[in-house]
């Protein structure tokens, strides 16, 4: 009886610690979403914080239930999140570059000038062709 109760208390404690750490990561990510000055900085700093927070919360859930079906569902959600978050971030930032969302004024852009120039030139060529 005592052994059973003790293991239940241990599971609750570990699970709540995981959930509190995950919620703290998510809160910090949301504050960063409000504070940072530029779209690219927000994108590269924020989305991954929320991914780690979500993973910790779901791990706490799996530890608390301790059931194989729940373990399978939790592993499915975690692996799906870790696979899709970088793809979504990459597609969004590529779209933002092609839409000419401006960079922060302190960003070092020396390596990127040739790419930007080429993009603008190709756009100008497309415009000329459309005008003809």
């Amino acid at each position, binding site marked *: 009886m005592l052994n059973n109760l003790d293991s239940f208390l241990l599971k609750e404690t570990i699970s709540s610690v995981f959930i509190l750490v995950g919620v703290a990561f998510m809160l910090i990510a*949301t504050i960063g979403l409000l504070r940072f000055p530029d*779209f690219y900085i927000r994108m590269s700093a924020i989305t991954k914080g929320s991914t780690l927070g979500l993973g910790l*919360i779901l791990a706490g859930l799996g530890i608390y*239930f301790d059931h194989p079906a729940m373990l399978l569902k939790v592993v499915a959600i975690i692996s799906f999140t870790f696979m899709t978050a970088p793809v979504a971030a990459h*597609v969004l930032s590529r779209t933002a570059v092609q*839409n000419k969302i401006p960079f922060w004024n302190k960003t070092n852009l020396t390596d990127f000038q040739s790419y930007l120039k080429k993009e603008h030139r190709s756009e100008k060529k497309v415009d000329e062709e459309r005008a003809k």
Partner: protein
Amino acid sequence: MNLFSVTLIIAIGTLSICLVLTAIRFAIGPTLPDRISAFDLFVANVIGIIAIYTELTGNADFIDVAIILSLFGFLGSISFAYFLMKRIR
């Protein structure tokens, strides 16, 4: 009302504050990609709330909602980005 459920209710309250802050960024975001990234974080927060609610009630059926929501959040942000890329061509 033991210490464990109090901890979970505090966590749900913190995530609700996160939802309000994300909605502020959604409202003031200067461009459309800002709003899409805010939407992404919004979906992640809602998945977290559903997970903690599952643990609070002890009913294991709610986690299916989180699976479907994670799938639809990814599809939503991808299709918004695709629409934006099509519009400038």
